[in-house]
């Protein structure tokens, strides 16, 4: 169910970046999803209806899935568990609660359509000090 919240948050983020860049439309979104997020198919399913009426309408959603890896404190090494929810080292069996990769839910990039008028005066590339970047 919460994939709809995720889709909405994703679309809001992308639309903000579109507005900041003077873009009229988002044509492509690239998303990084850890396997533990377990919403890959559902996110595809929700994205289109959630995008309707926004700058993301009709955009292509690309999802890169990130496999699970955990840190084994005994081996002091990053390992791949034998199952998605079997948080034990495949080598020595030690419990491995620390997930290194597999929980990601990130918007990686957006591809934007920028009208001529807006693209004649592009925003500065050094925009990471703007207000939207003040979040922790």
């Amino acid at each position: 169910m919460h994939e709809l919240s995720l889709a909405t948050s994703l679309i809001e983020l992308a639309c903000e970046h579109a507005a900041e860049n003077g873009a009229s439309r988002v044509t492509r979104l690239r998303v990084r999803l850890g396997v533990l997020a377990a919403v890959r198919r559902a996110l595809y399913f929700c994205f289109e209806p959630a995008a309707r009426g926004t700058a993301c309408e009709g955009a292509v959603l690309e999802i890169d899935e990130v496999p699970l890896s955990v840190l084994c404190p005994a081996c002091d090494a990053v390992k791949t568990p034998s199952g998605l929810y079997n948080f034990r080292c495949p080598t020595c069996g030690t419990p491995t609660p620390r997930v290194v990769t597999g929980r990601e839910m990130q918007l990686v990039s957006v591809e934007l359509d920028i009208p001529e008028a807006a693209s004649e005066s592009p925003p500065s590339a050094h925009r990471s000090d703007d207000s939207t970047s003040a979040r922790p």
Partner: protein
Amino acid sequence: MCGVCGCGEGEARLDGRALAQARIPGEHGGHGHHHHAHGQGHGRRALVEIEQDILSKNDADAATNRARFGERGILALNLVSSPGAGKTTLLTATIETLKGSLPVAVIEGDQETANDADRIRAAGARAVQINTGRGCHLDAHTVGHAFDSLAPEIGTVLFIENVGNLVCPAAFDLGEDHKVAILSVAEGEDKPLKYPDMFAAAELMVLNKIDLLPYVEFDPDRAIEYARRVNPQIAVIRLSARTGEGMPAWLDWIRQASERALRARTASVA
């Protein structure tokens, strides 16, 4: 190549400018907000690198909540379970025991009705009801508003009773100190394996309704073993909110966590 997103700096452009110039050194990491963009030469289509968590807004609101809870030495517990595991009954029993010794406030989350907040108030604690409508989980923003309206005093134990759902609330940080997962013995003992995210995110599992054990096929040891398979560090308390068995362990756990929250406040004020 950019180590974070794998973009090739050589071909990267921001409206015609090379990515190497557009990127700010040291920008990678965390919720990197490096906006290096890759134009495609004609200035009409641009690829903007973002690297931002999809739930960053919720996470930012949760961080604000956490800071505000911390300022007042409040212990915030996010109670999660499937519908019918006994969250509200556990809460009313808890409130009746803590009343007079610790200030308690409750944020109740349900899709509809104020029934649970009414039950909490009848037990003697302040409560505010959030109705999520079609929403299947609480979010940090709404909890922040609920916190405003409760304005709990210093040292309050704030229970946030999430919408009964073992899936979605796992993904949404509310700013709580701990998630407490409640599993009743009337459910399947393999719930921790079926809904691993929630049990992986919880610090404590309360095995509730143990007074029903003689009547159900539920092996508590196996349920605990399953929970530790997905979360080796999870603490477990077996209790019955109805008979009171196990309640002292639960109340001790709350008191100790509350003392830690107050000590952290004193340390930061000093």
